[in-house]
């Protein structure tokens, strides 16, 4: 059946040339590589398990207690999950191995007909360390449920896993917290893990239908890892896992360890990196030649209201999404994205349990889609390009973390810094400047994050016309809801408009217009800066930079001064006024000069209008709605 499935897969013919077919040492697993990346160590393969033939590399969602956070088995299948991970320790405690024996395994109990993998419970040594005591015999746990003590030995672990009946079982390993410093502890753990593996193999009653994977230990020490690798590989298992990572170690040490392990592990057997689930880590580890992953992250983050997207995750609690009627991800085909908008999810997230289900479903589907893209790109032998595109989308402005660059360089994938047009850079300067970002966020005026989302989209230029209309409508509601409008809103609207104009009409604009837009933007920025952060140091900074800039002439100085006075006038009844007092003498005009301020704003407005007219844009009505 494995062969038939392989032949029907697209790209299988391409794969045939590169394929390293293998026979497995286990009757319960057959593994064949379908295609390999010509640059990196990435490969895509087919692994046939007793319950399901799975495509690798793959991500396995974690269903610790025999269920995946509120999702029905059908929904999990709909999200294209191939293997669910269960936990031996938890399932062994509750409902217990006897029940599984009666029921004929976890598959039947939870109605899951695809493959299952059970973790041995070793990891709980770390996560429940206070409750566990490790000896050569095994791990002594105190049950978190009723306080009773139980001994988890390798034999016991396998007995439970045999009862559960997972397609892949993990050996009980001696897991040490990766942040532990003691070399000797890691050394003991590495050797003990192999000793326990031998006991596990001996205890396995179903080698014909349950695979037992050894786990490579050795912390972050290459010599220990090598010892562990050598010993474990000698046991000729159907597949191998890299353990003891993802516990909070530095990424600079994480990837070389994975790299080392995949270099030594047999090529014709699946490799499983335990506890890895962030999108970037998945892509990097695939490049390093890992085939299987698991992590609680996608479902856990869903419980906190976060949805996974191509550039990380978005928290739907944020007010940005209150009027955002797009799906979480337009490219996503999951039922959440097909049926619900961000605005709807924003309304119910963290309040109604169904929000958690919807987000879990999306997040699982996202991970599956990511892995599918990786598999497809390897088949088409464009994995390197995929990685570049992925990283470029994930890290705006190509500011890649060094470890990602290094890890990928180790497998001959170079991440280029894409130096695109000046406009983009200008825009992202504004966008990324932490300081100005914070200023915007801290606005007291009610001009809120919502506007920033629009800003970002306008800048990045990735929104369609009708969306632009919807966006403007969104602004409108947000702004109209503020009865007392601060002039900063007015200014920011104009600024946003200009920015959108600069980006969207990039090609149509002549130099003159561009300069004009920037000049107006400068005026706006000055006015805004003074309003946002009326501190002396900023003011001085602004004044200083004005003097140094050639384009600033005296007139600009006056304008700056007038906008400042304008601010004063507006806040003259406010307590903030006191702060401005000290500056009065400096600029030589008094807070009462509202004429001056209005002149300044009117000038900004008329010049903006002129620019907009010249490119054929109409200033949306809502911008002009409020009297200043």
């Amino acid at each position, binding site marked *: 059946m494995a062969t038939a499935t392989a032949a029907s897969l697209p790209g299988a013919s391409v794969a045939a040339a590169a394929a390293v077919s293998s026979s497995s040492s286990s009757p319960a697993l057959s593994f064949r590589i379908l295609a390999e990346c010509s640059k990196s160590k990435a490969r895509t393969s087919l692994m046939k398990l007793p319950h399901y033939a799975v495509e690798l590399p793959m991500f396995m969602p974690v269903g610790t207690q025999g269920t995946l956070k509120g999702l029905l088995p059908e929904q999990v299948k709909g999200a294209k999950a191939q293997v669910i991970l269960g936990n031996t320790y938890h399932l062994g405690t509750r409902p217990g191995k006897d029940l599984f024996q009666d029921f004929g395994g976890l598959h039947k109990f939870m109605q899951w007909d695809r493959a299952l993998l059970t973790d041995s419970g070793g990891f709980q040594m770390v996560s429940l360390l206070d409750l566990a005591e490790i000896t050569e015999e095994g791990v002594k746990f105190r049950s978190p449920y009723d306080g009773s003590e139980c001994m988890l030995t390798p034999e016991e672990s396998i007995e439970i896993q045999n009862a559960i009946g997972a397609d892949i079982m993990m050996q009980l390993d001696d897991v040490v917290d990766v942040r532990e410093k003691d070399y000797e502890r890691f050394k003991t753990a590495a050797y003990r893990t192999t000793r326990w593996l031998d006991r596990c193999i001996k205890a396995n009653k179903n080698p014909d239908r349950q695979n037992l994977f050894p786990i490579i230990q050795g912390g972050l020490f290459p010599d220990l890892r090598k010892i562990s690798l050598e010993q474990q590989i000698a046991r000729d298992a159907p597949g191998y896992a890299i353990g003891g990572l993802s516990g909070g170690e530095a990424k600079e040490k994480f990837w070389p360890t994975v790299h080392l392990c995949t270099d030594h592990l047999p090529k014709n057997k699946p490799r499983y990196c335990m506890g890895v689930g962030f999108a970037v880590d998945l892509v990097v580890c695939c490049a390093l030649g890992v085939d299987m992953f698991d992590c609680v992250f996608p479902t856990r983050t869903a419980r906190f209201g976060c949805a996974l997207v191509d550039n990380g995750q978005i928290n739907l609690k944020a007010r940005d999404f209150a009027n955002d009627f797009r799906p979480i991800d337009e490219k996503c085909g999951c039922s959440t994205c097909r049926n619900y908008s961000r605005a709807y999810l924003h309304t119910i997230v963290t309040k109604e349990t169904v929000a958690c289900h919807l987000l879990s479903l999306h997040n699982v589907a996202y991970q599956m889609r990511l892995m599918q893209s990786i598999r497809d790109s390897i088949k088409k032998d464009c994995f390197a390009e995929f990685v570049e595109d992925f990283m470029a989308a994930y890290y705006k402005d190509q500011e890649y973390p060094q470890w990602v660059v290094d890890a990928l360089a180790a497998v001959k994938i170079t991440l280029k810094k894409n130096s695109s047009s000046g406009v983009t850079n200008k825009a992202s300067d504004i966008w990324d400047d932490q300081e100005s970002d914070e200023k915007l966020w801290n606005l007291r005026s009610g001009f809120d994050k919502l506007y920033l989302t629009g800003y970002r989209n306008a800048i990045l230029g990735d929104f369609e016309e009708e969306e632009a209309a919807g966006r403007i409508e969104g602004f409108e*509601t947000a702004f109209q809801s503020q009865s007392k409008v601060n002039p900063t809103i007015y200014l920011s609207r104009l600024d946003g408009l200009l920015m959108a104009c600069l980006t969207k009409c990039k090609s149509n604009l002549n130099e003159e217009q561009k300069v004009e837009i920037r000049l107006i933007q400068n005026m706006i920025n000055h006015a805004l800066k003074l309003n946002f952060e009326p501190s002396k140091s900023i003011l001085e900074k602004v004044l200083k930079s004005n003097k140094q800039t050639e384009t600033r002439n005296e007139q600009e100085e006056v304008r700056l001064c007038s906008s400042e006075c304008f601010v004063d006038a507006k806040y003259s009844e406010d307590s903030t006024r006191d702060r401005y007092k000290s500056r009065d003498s400096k600029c030589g005009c008094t807070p009462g000069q509202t004429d001056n301020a209005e002149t300044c704003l009117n000038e900004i407005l008329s010049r903006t209008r002129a620019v907009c007219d010249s490119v054929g844009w109409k200033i949306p009505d809502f911008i002009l709605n409020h009297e200043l």
Partner: protein
Amino acid sequence: MFFILWWTRMHHYMYRLSIFVTTFRCFRITRKELHTSLHFSVCVSVQDAAKATPQGYNHKKGVSLWTYGGRQIITADKYMDLMEAMQPDWYEALNDADPGIGSSKKRILNSTTSSMEYLKQCITLHKASQKLKGSALFAPLLGGRSEKARNGWSKSLMSTTVDKSAISGYTIVGLHTNGPEVEDLQPVNVSNIVKASLEPLAAELPRQTAGMWNPLTVLQLAHLGVDIFDSTFPFLVTERRGALTFPFRLNRRQNDGAYSKGSCLEHQNKKLKVSEDSPKAKAEEEVPRQDNKIRESEDEELSSPYEINMKNKSNVSLMKPLLEGCECYTCKNFTRAYVHHLTIANELLAPVLLMMHNLHHWMDFFSSIREAIKTDRLEDLQTLITTSVFESNEDITLS
């Protein structure tokens, strides 16, 4: 300006049962949003029937709604703005249904006076609105627990002071103040006041009443001529992790000869099963029975005779479905042991599976009611439930 309101119909745990949306963001959730994702009729009531409405917060200016963001006082104008934004298939007019048991005549009078004001405003705005052309307005039936006041209110609805052309139905409110306590209202408690409310009304318009009515009270209300109920009962049963098992199938009971093991209820199963089960199955049956007694004494308030409690340890190794013969997704796929495991482990899937079962059971119960009305056997249905659930006819009788 943005706030979230609770409108309740039914609560949904899973998207496929999404007829039961509880919360909408007013203004910005459009009809399209609501309907494309639901594909079902949407009805809006003023208060959430699953949560006890705090009393004493309504006054002349408006009605208090209890939202995620706290209390919101809502006027008829504002309420109708919301309706325009949501465009439900039908909605009840804004009303002050506050007066609970033991309210003074004065309080009832105040509530009916202000509610009449709201109703008239709602009718005017409803008729003027283009957007609400496709929505139906239901008039509230008020009057607290006073037969006289209820009768008077209904009569005033039929009088010329109210524009009847805009009213497409009635909803009986003010029988209770929502929340789980409604379950304790027995047929005898509501029978007369509902009768008083319904008596003056025209027969051709639908009548609705929201709340956690227990099955016997539902039957009584249906008997009195109420047409529309909601799923608060199965929802709140799910919240306390119960699975509904009360019987309602008349036909199967009638042909006792054809009574198969797979199509009956546990209660009856216990009585009827004598020889057909193996000793093991028999033992399994005995366990819950004993535990039922224990449960009833331990946490009586968390359960009702209509359901089995899935927290109960007796389910730990039961390989049978929640209800033998039930055709719902949960019963066809999962065992009690699994649902019990999920419940004990506090997993999110437990309420999902239970709600699917309970809702299915509740819907089937209603199809059985419709059938019984058609064949004029409503009393038989009442007797069936009374005898099998309470095993005796004491207290509860048809009036």
